[in-house]
Every structure is written in structure tokens, then in C-alpha cells.
């Protein structure tokens, strides 16, 4: 590989670049400039993460010491395939959603607020990347709050269209803060027991310790992260937050935020705690049951929702169930399935929410009635929604199918509380539910007549349509070319499992 100066800082660059870029954004002239700047930043960041993924993929895990301080004591960025993949995903979503955002933001957010909006978006990106990159557990909290705080602001900016965005943001803030605080408490307990905050170090020192302090720490951390990732009984903040946020924000968050949290959960369960603890079994069983409950409960709610954004938000809760299910198997295959679904679901939901954003831009509503006869009025958007909807159901040749297939395959190879076959059938059944709510949307768009007095509308602007279709094509592309998804996910999962099973190679 070509060596050019600064490459040794590569692991930190994806976090640092947007971090430095953010304050400049706020002082820019409202309008096009901040958008261009944000897009540029997201692309550069995306390039960095791609490069990083390449380096890690072929060169093994890499470590970066912040300020030069060594591993157990200083903050290190430890990048292996798992977080390189998640970082790449987050940056990629930003690189697609930011360009998409312009027209959507123009119509949904006051012009004067646009620098603030893009600042918040960039900071959110920083936070999410930071959570994924860092190897220091307390640093995770800091980045978590960086992304969360900006997210609250972003959600609240939806107030121009619907004031309920404010209450949604407020609820999200309270819940998010409680979650983060739980996390900090748990971390404090772990620190009390081990005296370190570095994740790998924690893993080493937690080995053999099984006392009330560690147990309590575990419970706090799992609940805290569970809240942030909208695990089922703790998901209450999500539907409204996604439902009322500006379209571009929803598309970005739905594709990235919960995914990063899932990654964090995996990191804690597999890297920090590892399998030495009996209570881990409990957590995995809890994930299994909560995952399945979530799959069905949220899908049922989605079936009855008339607001498409909220319908998709509930669908996200259901999809999180799939990811938890994969984690709960406690096998390489299960973890692979989770990572693959993290990736694929990001593609699916980004496409869907971006499509809905186009409709909101042109029709001004995300109610199902606004979609009536959309196929004739906005064919490009409609067919993008149809394809990504099929992907959500898991119809080949779309990525959704790969996810379901890997998950079913993994389910068959595990022994859990619930018989594998039943798990597989449940996965299939919940896909049917997805087919119902997606089918409802498709039927409304394709087969119903547009309202009689509907004004003529144009298709969404090119920038939005191109971004949308990039996502749709990615949905199909990654069905055929699974090296990046399944290949990397498998390796990442193997490394994660190895680290706790003690096969030595991973760290």
C-alpha cells in the first residue's frame, strides 16, 4: 500500500475530521454552503473509513494511541474488523444522506437554522464514529453523549413541520440521559472492581471476578445500552423520535444510531465480559426472548400504523429484534448474521426513509393516504420504495434475503431455550408480518388511484433521487456481492468470539 504522511493517524481521522469540521459549519452563511461543506466532510470521512477498513481487513487489527499514551492507561482506538465495518457503514450512510438532505432540509427547516442543522449532523456523525472507534469504555460514554445531544437537537428541528417533534425530542432526551447515566454507573462499578477503563484491559481483569459489583455493573450497562438501542421494552422513545424528526435526520439515524449501539452491546458482551460469566447466559436468553417479542410486537404495531414514518420506525424496532436474536445465539454464525443484518438493514431503512422523505417533500405528509396512487405521480420514488420494501421483507434478490438466510442458518445451528426450528419458523412468520405492512404500502402506492383533486407534483429533485437510488442499487448489489458484508462480518465475528474463547489470535 502506498504510504503517505498522516496514515499512521488513520484510525483517529474519521473521528477527528468531522470533529474539527463541525465548528466551522456553524459560522457559515445559511443556505447552500453548510450543506456543501457537510457533504464534503462526509465524503472525506467515508474515504478514511474505507481506507481504514482496507487496512484492517488485510493488515489485521490496528491500534492508535491518543496523544501517545499506551494501552491500559491512555485512551486507545482499537480498530478491528467489527468496528471498522460499523465505522464504514456509518460514514457511508452519512456520505449518502448528507447530499440527499439539501432539498429536504430546505423545505423542513428554517433557512437560518441550516448551519446549526448541519453542525449537529456532523457532530452526530463524530459521536457515532467515536463510539465505534474507541477502545476506552469511558470514552464511549463521551461519544455516546456527543451523538445523543446532537440527535436531540436534530429531532427537535422537526418542529417546524409538526410541533410534536419537540415532545418527542424531550422524551428522547430524558430516556437517553437515563440510559447514558445507567451506563456510567455500570462503568463506575466496573472501574471499582478493576481499576481500568480500557476495554481489552477490562476483559483481562474481569476474568475470574464474579461478585456483586461486577454483576451490578453488568446489569446497569446492559440496561443502559439496551435503552439506547431500543431493545423492546425500552424502545418507547424511538417511534416518535424517528416519526417526527426531519426526513433526512430520520434516514440517517435509522441507518446508523441503533446499529452503533448494537455494535457496542456486542463489544461489551463479547469483548469486555466474555463468556466466563454465568449471568451472560441470562442476558443472551433475555435477548433471545426480547428479540422475538420485539419482532412480533413491533411488527403488529407497524401493521396498524397509518403514518408511514412511524410504521417504519416500529419496523426498525422489530428489526432490532432480529439483530438481538443473532447475538443471543452466542455463536460465530449468529454474530455474523447480526453484523450482516446491521449492515443490510442500514441500507434498507436508509432507502425507505429517504423515499418517504421525497414524498414528504413533494406532498407534505407521511400519512398513508398521501401515498395513494404515488406510482403515477412519483414513479422513481415509488419503485425505490417498492424495491427497498421488498428488501425489508427479505425477497431475493435483495439484501434482506441475505440477512434472513444467514439468521435462519445460524438459528439452525444453535441450541437455545427455544427449539431452533421454532425460531426459524418465527423468523419466517415475522417476515410475513413485514410483508403485510410493506404490502399495504405497496398496494396503496401502486394500485390505488390518486385522490381526485390531487395537484400535479414533480418528482423529487435529482440530488435526492440519485441518493435514494444509490441505496436501492446497493440493496441489490450486496445480494450478489457479499464479500464485504458476509465476508467481513464472518471474520469480525470470528475475531470477537476468539477473543473471549481464548484462541489468542485476535488481540
Amino acid at each position: 500500500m502506498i504510504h503517505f504522511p498522516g496514515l499512521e493517524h488513520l484510525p483517529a481521522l474519521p473521528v477527528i475530521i468531522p470533529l474539527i469540521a463541525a465548528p466551522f459549519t456553524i459560522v457559515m452563511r445559511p443556505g447552500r454552503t453548510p450543506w456543501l461543506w457537510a457533504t464534503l466532510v462526509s465524503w472525506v470521512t467515508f474515504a478514511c473509513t474505507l481506507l481504514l477498513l482496507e487496512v484492517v481487513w488485510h493488515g489485521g487489527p490496528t491500534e492508535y494511541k491518543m496523544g501517545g499514551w499506551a494501552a491500559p492507561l491512555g485512551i486507545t482506538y482499537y480498530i478491528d474488523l467489527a468496528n471498522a465495518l460499523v465505522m464504514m457503514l456509518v460514514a457511508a450512510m452519512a456520505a449518502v444522506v448528507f447530499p440527499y438532505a439539501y432539498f429536504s432540509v430546505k423545505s423542513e427547516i428554517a433557512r437560518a437554522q441550516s448551519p446549526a442543522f448541519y453542525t449537529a449532523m456532523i457532530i452526530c456523525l463524530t459521536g457515532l464514529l467515536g463510539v465505534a472507534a474507541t477502545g476506552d469504555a469511558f470514552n464511549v460514554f463521551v461519544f455516546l453523549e456527543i451523538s445523543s445531544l446532537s440527535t436531540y437537537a436534530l429531532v427537535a428541528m422537526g418542529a417546524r413541520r409538526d410541533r410534536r417533534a419537540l415532545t418527542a425530542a424531550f422524551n428522547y432526551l430524558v430516556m437517553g440521559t437515563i440510559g447514558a447515566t445507567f451506563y456510567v454507573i455500570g462503568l463506575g462499578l466496573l472501574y471499582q472492581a478493576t481499576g481500568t477503563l480500557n476495554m481489552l484491559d477490562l476483559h483481562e481483569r474481569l476474568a475470574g471476578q464474579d461478585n456483586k459489583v461486577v454483576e451490578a455493573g453488568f446489569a446497569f450497562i446492559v440496561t443502559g445500552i439496551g435503552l439506547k438501542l431500543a431493545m423492546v421494552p425500552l424502545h418507547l422513545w424511538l417511534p416518535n423520535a424517528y416519526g417526527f424528526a426531519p426526513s433526512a435526520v430520520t434516514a440517517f439515524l435509522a441507518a446508523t444510531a441503533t446499529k452503533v449501539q448494537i455494535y457496542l452491546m456486542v463489544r461489551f458482551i463479547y469483548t469486555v465480559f466474555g463468556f466466563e460469566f454465568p449471568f451472560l447466559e441470562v442476558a443472551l436468553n433475555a435477548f433471545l426472548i426480547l428479540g422475538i417479542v420485539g419482532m412480533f410486537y413491533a411488527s403488529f404495531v407497524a401493521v396498524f400504523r397509518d403514518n408511514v414514518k412511524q410504521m417504519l420506525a416500529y419496523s426498525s424496532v422489530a428489526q432490532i429484534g432480529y439483530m438481538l436474536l443473532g447475538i443471543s445465539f452466542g455463536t460465530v454464525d449468529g454474530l455474523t448474521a447480526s453484523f450482516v443484518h446491521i449492515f443490510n438493514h442500514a441500507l434498507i431503512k436508509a432507502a425507505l426513509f429517504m423515499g418517504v422523505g421525497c414524498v414528504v417533500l413533494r406532498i407534505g405528509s407521511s400519512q398513508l393516504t398521501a401515498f395513494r396512487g404515488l406510482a403515477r405521480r412519483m414513479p422513481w420514488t415509488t419503485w425505490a420504495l417498492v424495491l427497498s420494501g421488498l428488501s425489508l421483507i427479505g425477497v431475493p434478490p435483495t439484501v434482506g434475503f441475505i440477512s434472513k438466510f444467514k439468521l435462519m442458518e445460524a438459528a439452525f445451528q444453535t441450541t437455545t431455550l427455544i427449539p431452533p426450528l421454532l425460531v426459524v419458523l418465527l423468523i419466517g412468520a415475522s417476515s410475513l408480518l413485514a410483508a403485510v405492512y410493506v404490502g399495504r404500502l405497496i398496494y396503496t402506492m401502486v394500485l390505488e388511484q390518486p385522490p381526485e383533486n390531487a395537484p400535479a407534483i414533480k418528482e423529487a429533485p435529482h440530488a435526492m433521487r440519485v441518493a435514494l437510488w444509490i441505496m436501492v442499487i446497493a440493496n441489490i448489489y450486496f445480494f450478489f456481492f457479499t464479500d464485504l458484508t458476509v465476508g467481513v462480518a464472518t471474520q469480525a465475528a470470528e475475531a470477537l468470539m476468539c477473543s473471549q474463547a481464548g484462541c489468542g489470535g485476535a488481540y
Partner: protein
Amino acid sequence: MWEFILERYNYWIVITLMMTGLYIVFSRGNLVKTIIGLNVFQTSVFIFYITIGKIAGGTAPILMGGHGGGHDGQGDHTSATHGADAAHDVSVKPTLDDLRAGSDAAEAAGEVEAHSHNDLAAAMKGVEQQPAYETQSLHSLPDMAQAAQGNSILADPGEAAEAVLTPRDQGLHDMPEAGLGADGHETLGHEAVTSVTDAAAHAADIIYTNPLPHVLILTAIVVGVATTAVGLALAVRIQEAYGTIEEDELEAEDYEAEFGERLAGSEAR
């Protein structure tokens, strides 16, 4: 029994505060009160962290003269060339400045706090670690870390005493060999440690509390302030948009917006 409870009075304070905060969040319908409750809840965590780091008889973790250790990171820092000998009368502050200058990322946002404080933590730990590193007594590294661990555990003396013994013995055994004295160690020293071995005994004049929780909590405070600020700002916006910040009324209005009818019994509540 009473002793057991009283000894842990600090934890009871934490728990009381935590419960109070959470209860306010649960029960208050006024958004501002909710935020304040949240704030109280967070505050309990600050105290919890502080209580972890406190060592009986320890003083604030600011280095006194004559007890400096090598405190620099390895790497291409400006201060990286400091050896243990050169650093005797250097206090933490300049080091921190160095770090600030050196960490190129931290200036940009509110995150500056997080970084510099973590760096401070790192610096304090580095003090301990550096000598071992320089003498290349590689296997003493984990031992030193273990000592640090012991230190933090000792905030809860009963539980951790045994856990510390073995690694500490080894650690203290290694250090004199490496010709360092107890320089690094005593910085974070503790009476239990210092009383055991000779090497430590004559070096530990001053006991510092563990600085790491403090710096962590400084970070957390910043986050907490930011959260409170955003939350209150949101409350203001809600007041502007709805004309109320009482949750019942907000809920009733949202319900009406969603279903087009008044929420049953909303007036009565």
C-alpha cells in the same frame, strides 16, 4: 450491622440522591421539574465516582515537590524526552498544557473537556507506568497496573485487601530492582501498601486520592450540564409551541392532533 451501614454512608447518600432524582422524573408532570430531577439523578453519579476515588487521608491529586515521576507519554511528544530524573520538580500542570498542545483533536468542540481530562487521567497513570516502561521490565507493567487496581479498590477497603496482596508484593519486588525506588508507585500510594514494604515506607509522605474518577466526573459534569441545557431549551421551545409545559396538557393536545378528539378525562386530571 450499624457499623456496616455507617461505614458506607457515602453510598447511602448516592443511593438516596439517585432515588430522589429518579422519583422526580417518574412523578412530576412539569418538564422543567423532570429535567431537574434528571440533573439530581446525574449528580448522584458524580458523587458515586468521587467516592470511588477518595482515599482516606488522601489529598487532592496535585503533585507536591520532590515527588514527581516520569509523567510523559512515549511517542513524539514535546515532553517525551523527560526522564525520571529530569522530571522531579515538574508538576502536573505543565504536563497537562503539553498534552493540550499536543492533542490536536481536542480543541474543536465541547469535547475538549473530555479529552483533556482523560489525558490528565492518562498522565497520572503514566506517572506510574513510565519508569517500568523505560527500564524495559516488561512484565512489571501488568503488575503496576494491578497496583493501580488495588488502589482503586481500596476505596472500599474491606473487599479488596486480599485481592491486592499478591500483585502488590510482586510489583514492589520488581521496582527496587529496576532502580526506581517507589517513585511512580507512591504517587498513587495508599497506606495499606506503603506500610507493607520498606521501599514504600520511606517514600510515601503524601497520599493522593485517585485522580482518575475526578477527571472522569469532570467530563460527566460537562455532559450533564449540556444535557440540562438542551433539555431546558427544549422546554422553552415547547412552551412557545404549545403554551404549556405540563405533560398532561401536552399529551391531551398531541392526542387531539393524532385522533382529532379530546383525550377522555384529560380535563379532569
